[in-house]
């Protein structure tokens, strides 16, 4: 046996494109406000998303207060209740989760992780944020127009969303639709950037199969978003025309308040198809980046390479493809040819295969690993448990015969909050604790972080776990108040009070996180360049926080995948992606 093995990873080929011409900001305004640097845009995106997210959190309190103490708070009448439900849902799904994962983490991490100086079109990237901001302002503006925001539910189903009797049918629905159309325009500009940067602007040696799974998740989500948002765009434009010009795309002939409306011959089901053609992929647009981030958190904090990297990538792609053909499972109760129901149930259940594969691989990564229970790791583990829980209830709801009785109950609310509410939010928190040192150069406080984790994680379970039970009892969702309902026992009301009190407490406890976030800016322990001893490229920048252009004079050269942990024979227990090959190394 020879010990002088030739390194498998020979030097990568020379650069194919010349280094980019960077735009250098000269004034405070172009440096921090109308900025073209992806890192600043990322923070703008995340800041805006978190701000509207807090608004949506407060709205959820209003919903919960009404459900637990019906009529106790005078200003929460039926109108305010339905407006809160609608705005809470729409803000959380679109303006918070989508924006923070793709606009926030996507902008910050993609260029750093693939070894680029910036996004490929920094100017378009900047426009993307400003259009997003305008969309958000238009949405919030609906609180200041006559009639207030729309109360049609976040799905905005016609005919009810534009008829009198639905709160906000005067202006709220118009502003909501305009805001969504703007959001899609802004997002398209950003999404093109993320995709082209990943495909065309990687550094030397960075093959697609050497990208961190975070990048894979964000990339797949961006592709899906560009294919799915057109459905919402078209639905939004057509509903806007129905509302403002009196067209009948979605509106059948109907009588309202004893008066026959002018609408004739439209198809309300068409709206549902278009909406859910966007709406279902949207779930995975939020989930795939979370999958990616959590893979990286687990690998770094367990000091072990991710188990089955290639299969993890293919699972992301398989989930992305499958999720485009399952939208009908949101419409089982709308009436559907049984064969379609069969088709959509099969595709829906098939998604469980690649998803389960990912869960097994996360668990196998943890198997016999050197697990460090840091705050990011705790959040990653919290995600695993929550996601499995939400995924399993998803299998129930994917079946037509189980879905039909459960569809209009709190069971569905519990399911989707577990799987696409709590699970991604836990990942967002974990990701912030993980990358905060790179963004600011300082560590967040670990003790406060752990307190924050346990309150959030246990609290979220206390809120949503009992909700499954309420749903199985038959307690309907979306109802303003229950009144006298024979099949709902009195104990359900007690449980509702428990859920509400917990929700208020967990919401308030997020102040710990914000205190930690802002305090650490000044008083956090200096982090150095690579506090977690992570191998992926974003931790190897010459400066921390990374400067304009990210990499100083020369772009990094990549020799291996981002998961080279506990490599035998290496000087430390990890090998950065850009460290030259060592003898006997077998990293992909």
């Amino acid at each position, binding site marked *: 046996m020879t010990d002088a093995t030739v390194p498998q990873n020979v030097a*990568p*080929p020379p*650069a*194919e*494109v010349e280094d980019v*011409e960077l*735009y250098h900001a000269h004034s405070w305004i172009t440096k921090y406000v109308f900025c073209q640097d992806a890192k600043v845009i990322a923070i703008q995106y995340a800041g805006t998303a978190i701000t509207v997210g807090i608004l949506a959190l407060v709205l959820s309190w209003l919903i919960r207060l009404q459900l637990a103490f019906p009529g106790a708070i005078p200003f929460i009448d039926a109108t305010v209740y339905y407006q809160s439900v609608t705005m809470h849902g729409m803000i959380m799904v679109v303006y918070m989760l989508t924006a923070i994962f793709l606009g926030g983490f996507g902008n910050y991490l993609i260029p750093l992780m693939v070894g680029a100086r910036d996004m*490929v*079109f920094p*100017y378009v990237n900047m426009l993307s944020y400003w259009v997003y901001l305008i969309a958000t302002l238009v949405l919030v503006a609906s609180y200041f127009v006559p009639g207030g925001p729309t109360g049609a539910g976040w799905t905005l189903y016609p005919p009810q969303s534009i008829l009198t009797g639905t709160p906000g049918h005067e202006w709220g629905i118009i502003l909501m639709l305009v805001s969504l159309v703007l959001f899609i325009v802004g997002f*398209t500009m950003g*999404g*093109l*950037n993320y*995709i*082209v940067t990943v*495909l*065309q*602007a*990687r*550094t*030397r*040696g*960075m*093959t*697609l*199969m*050497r990208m961190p799974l975070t990048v894979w998740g964000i990339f797949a989500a961006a592709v899906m978003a*560009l*294919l799915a*948002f*057109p*459905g919402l*765009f*078209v*639905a939004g*434009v*057509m509903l806007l*025309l129905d509302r403002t*010009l*009196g*067209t*009948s*795309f979605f509106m*059948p002939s109907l009588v309202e308040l004893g008066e026959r409306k*002018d609408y*004739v*011959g*439209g*198809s309300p089901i*068409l709206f549902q198809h*278009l909406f859910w*053609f966007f709406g279902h992929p949207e779930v995975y647009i939020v989930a795939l980046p979370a999958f990616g981030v959590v893979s990286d958190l687990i690998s770094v904090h367990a000091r072990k390479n991710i188990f089955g990297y290639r299969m993890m990538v293919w699972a992301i792609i398989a989930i992305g493809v499958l999720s485009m053909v399952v939208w009908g499972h949101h419409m089982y109760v709308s009436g559907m040819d049984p064969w379609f129901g069969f088709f959509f149930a099969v595709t829906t259940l098939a998604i469980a295969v690649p998803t389960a594969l990912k869960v097994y691989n996360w668990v196998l990564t943890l198997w016999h690993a050197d697990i460090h229970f840091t705050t990011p790791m705790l959040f990653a583990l919290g995600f695993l448990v929550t996601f499995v829980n939400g995924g399993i209830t998803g299998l129930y709801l994917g079946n037509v015969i189980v879905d039909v009785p459960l569809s209009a109950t709190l069971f569905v609310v519990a399911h989707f909050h577990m799987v696409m509410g709590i699970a991604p939010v836990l990942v967002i928190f974990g990701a912030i604790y993980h990358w905060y040192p790179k963004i600011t150069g300082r560590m967040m406080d670990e003790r406060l972080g752990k307190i924050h984790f346990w309150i959030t994680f246990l609290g979220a379970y206390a809120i949503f776990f009992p909700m499954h039970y309420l749903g199985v009892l038959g307690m309907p969702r979306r109802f303003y108040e229950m009144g006298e309902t024979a099949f709902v026992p009195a104990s359900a009301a007690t449980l509702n009070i428990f859920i509400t009190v917990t929700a208020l407490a967990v919401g308030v406890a997020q102040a710990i996180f914000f205190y930690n976030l802002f305090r650490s800016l000044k008083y956090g322990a200096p982090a150095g360049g690579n506090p977690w001893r992570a191998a992926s490229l974003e931790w190897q920048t010459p400066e921390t926080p990374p400067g304009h252009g990210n990499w100083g004079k020369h772009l990094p050269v*990549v020799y291996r995948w981002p998961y080279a942990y506990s490599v035998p024979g290496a000087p430390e227990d990890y090998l950065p992606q850009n460290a030259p090959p060592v003898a006997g190394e077998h990293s992909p």
Partner: protein
Amino acid sequence: MTAEHVTTEHAMTEQTLRSRLLGVVADWSSDQRSFKSASWGKAMMWIFLVSDTFVFSCFLISYMTVRMSTTVEWPHPSEIFALDIGGKKIPLILIAIMTFDLITSSGTMAMAVNFAYARERKKAAILMLVTAFFGAAFVGMQAFEWSKLIHEGVRPWGNPFGAAQFGSSFFMITGFHGFHVSVGVIFLLIIARAVWRGDYDVGRPGFFTSRKGRYEIVEIMGLYWHFVDLVWVFIFAFFYLW
């Protein structure tokens, strides 16, 4: 041709197909770029066009759906889109001219791309202006068609000829396409000016982006323009001929 000839030819094509597939795999397994010959701008435009295809597809599928869902009879396109010329009703004559106009503009656009790469600035700029003129003429004819139909009483919410969805879909789809053409015309004019002045030879920074442009922008513009033409062919087939 002998049988032996055919087999070798068959084997040859199979060989080239195989090597081409392997080439794609090699490109996607490589570092730096997945599309080796595409610049960032070109890749972005192609991906944007895929997304825009989904938008137009959703519009056209929605139009087909409401055409099925409506209970009122659909107006007859060849009668509605007919012009009185010399006392005779000629069906679809305006649409035929519009389609011809737009397809011609694709030809001039392709020539502009060719001359831009040959660095014949003036010829390229003039051909882009001709393209823009055809585009503007198309939008003008569309405006004429719209005003004719509005004059005859067609509105987005109803019309005297039949199903209300006819007017709704017509104004929405042709309007959205016309918007695409108008945006194209504006960008053609901006780029034609830059080509004419030689901005891409001297590396003058762009007004908004503060970055140097390249002649490739003409080709990227061309991609968009051909796409808008192609979409028109589908609108023509599904809306006017059906």
